[in-house]
């Protein structure tokens, strides 16, 4: 079991619960899509997994390690094994595409080295390789802000993959992309999942994309898991329920 979540709850204001008693397990190689209305708790859920948001109650075990007990140092180690892709790609736009990809190695690189740009040779080669697979190698020395939305999102994926993660989290990675770029980004993730058996959890609000790419779908509603099953078993009726 790669990820074990037990009775996870989260409240931001100690009144309303964004997550309520969420439990579930993830095995290696799964491609999970989390769907639900805006405000259902998808982002909160995904951010609890790498503790970008500290959770209120419950337990999360990643690779056998208890996240709740992790101190600052071991938390950094855990985070460096979990890649994350964001809706607005969150690249550092004033720096080059290559540096943005190399940021994925920050957790494994000392400050002196990263500040002087002295990343290891194999890290640089890995970055080139990843950029080639997403077709952006020729852009490596361009400022990130000169890329299109879809291209930036692919750079964001490279940054996450650069971490050599055991788990990839993605929070609405295609929500602000045009349909064609959205397909490309989802294809990229699917390819990585199939080729390297990387486990992926992705928040989506388009059910059709979830059905097309995921091996398992979780429907969230008001902070709770409302549905958990294969894409096939997600019927129209259940979809209506989730989105009502």
């Amino acid at each position, binding site marked *: 079991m790669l990820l074990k979540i037990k009775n996870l709850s989260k409240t931001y204001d100690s009144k309303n619960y964004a997550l309520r008693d969420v439990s579930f397990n993830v095995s290696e190689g799964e491609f999970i899509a989390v769907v639900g209305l805006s405000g259902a708790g998808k982002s909160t859920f995904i951010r609890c997994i790498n503790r970008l948001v500290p959770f209120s109650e419950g337990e999360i075990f990643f690779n056998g390690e208890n996240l709740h007990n992790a101190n600052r140092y071991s938390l*950094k180690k855990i985070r460096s094994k979990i*890649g994350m892709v964001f809706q607005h790609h*969150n690249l550092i*736009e004033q*720096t080059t595409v290559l540096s943005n990809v190399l940021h994925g190695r920050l957790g494994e690189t000392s*400050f002196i080295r*990263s500040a002087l740009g002295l990343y290891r040779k194999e890290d640089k080669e890995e970055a080139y390789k990843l950029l080639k697979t997403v077709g952006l190698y020729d852009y490596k020395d361009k400022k990130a802000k000169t890329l299109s939305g879809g291209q930036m999102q692919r750079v964001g994926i490279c940054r996450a993959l650069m971490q050599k993660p055991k788990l990839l989290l993605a929070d609405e990675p295609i929500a602000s992309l045009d349909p064609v770029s959205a397909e490309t980004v989802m294809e990229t993730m699917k390819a990585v999942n199939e080729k390297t058996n990387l486990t992926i959890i992705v928040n989506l609000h388009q059910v059709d994309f979830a059905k097309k790419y995921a091996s398992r779908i979780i429907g969230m509603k008001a902070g709770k898991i409302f549905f958990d099953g294969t894409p096939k078993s997600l019927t129209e009726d259940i979809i209506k329920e989730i989105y009502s």
Partner: protein
Amino acid sequence: MNKKILYFVLIAAISVLPFIILNVSLLDIIFSVPSLFSFLFDNFFPPNWNALDGNFIIVRNTILFAIVGTCISALLAFFLGILISEYFNPFVPIRLLARFFVSFLRNVPIIIFASILVFIFGIGPLIGVIALVLGGVGFLARSYANNMDELAQSKLEALKSTGASYFQIIFHGLFPAFTPAWLNWTLFAFEINIRISAVLGMVGAGGLGLLIQANLDLRNFRRAMALIILLMAIVLIVEFFVNKLRERLEKGLPYVPIIAFIIVIFFISASALNLNFQTFIQRLSNAPRILAHFAIFDFSVAPELLAALFTSILLGLAGLVLGAVFSFILTFFAAKNTAPSLTIKFSKYELNLNFLPFLIKGAIALLRAIPSLVIILMIIASLGFGYIAAVLGIAFSSLGYLTKAFIASVEEQEEAKIEALKSTGASHIQVIYHGILPAVSSVFWRWISLRLEFNISDSISLGVVGAGGIGMLLARAIRQSNFSYIATGVFIIFIAMFILELIIDKLRN
């Protein structure tokens, strides 16, 4: 990469050279800070509040100067702004003349204007108001003109295409479209003027500054401190209300009543100041005769003046370097999105340092409330005359200014980008270095270059209050009524500041 190294070496050289040429050691400066603070605590505290007795009128006048000066300059600068604007003034010679005039006003430190104006208008409140008007016009006209040209390119084009006449465009287009920016810049000028108004007292305008300086000179430090605290309170209260007003305006408070209110306040203040318009006109009619004295330059004294100007520039630069370095460090401890969550553990006891950002921001707000010349005077009073005191004084006022600006830029950075780097397992310092610095560094340089102009202006002014550099030579010439010497000095300052402005504008782009 090579370019980076070149820049680095260049900046390092520019940072170090002033200290070497002035022959002041960085260590001496840094080690004098503890003795400065212990002197301040021992001698300036507790403040002697008796100093405030019977000085109500002076305090009141300090505020009124700023109100009246700002209002008049807002009006004059509007017309000058139109004259400077490329869109509204197609007559190139007039535009260039207006530009030259405004640039002259902006580039000669206001305290030097004030000391020369004494020749024409004599000592008294008139000087305060006129100096503030001149300085205000210099600052505002350019800001207004930039804004008008921007508006012309975006909004006013449409109006022009309807076939509206020149005056129709100004009345129906420019007036309503420009009002928000006009108010905003004017409020900004008011915040600056309240500080300047306090300082102008030192050169004969009467006001809080004169009292502070007199008490410092007589080494009545506790009395001086009471007055300084009063001044800080005034500045902070003014800023508070101006900020509130700004927030309201942004939320859609109508402009017309506000402007009507400002006009009423203006007339009340002007009449309370007892400004005599007839005296003004009468004195003004003498102006050409007196100014004629200044029409003769004496370039034989130029080398002496240039050397002193060079010293003033170096002092401003050295203060800037120190101020910028420390602001840079403080910023990341104080900005809410970069402040480390520090806890110090002593076996069982834990000390949480999360109050640090609050503490730094508070200290910076207090520091900023003191006009830079007053800070410099306090430091000179504590450490004695000399370059160390001058550099430290300029460094402290740069620190207040830059830290606030830096923090604002850092806090503007999206939390999401910080989050993205955190999620890779980056350390705190890596998040700052790779995530925030690339985004803010160009803004930081812009603030630093802006501050350089202020600093040099301050370091010239500081000579007038007795601390060396070109200002001291000018102050001596003013006491001796040595007109050609003053004229040459002002000319040299103007040219130097003008060149500096050009260089900085170039660098910014």
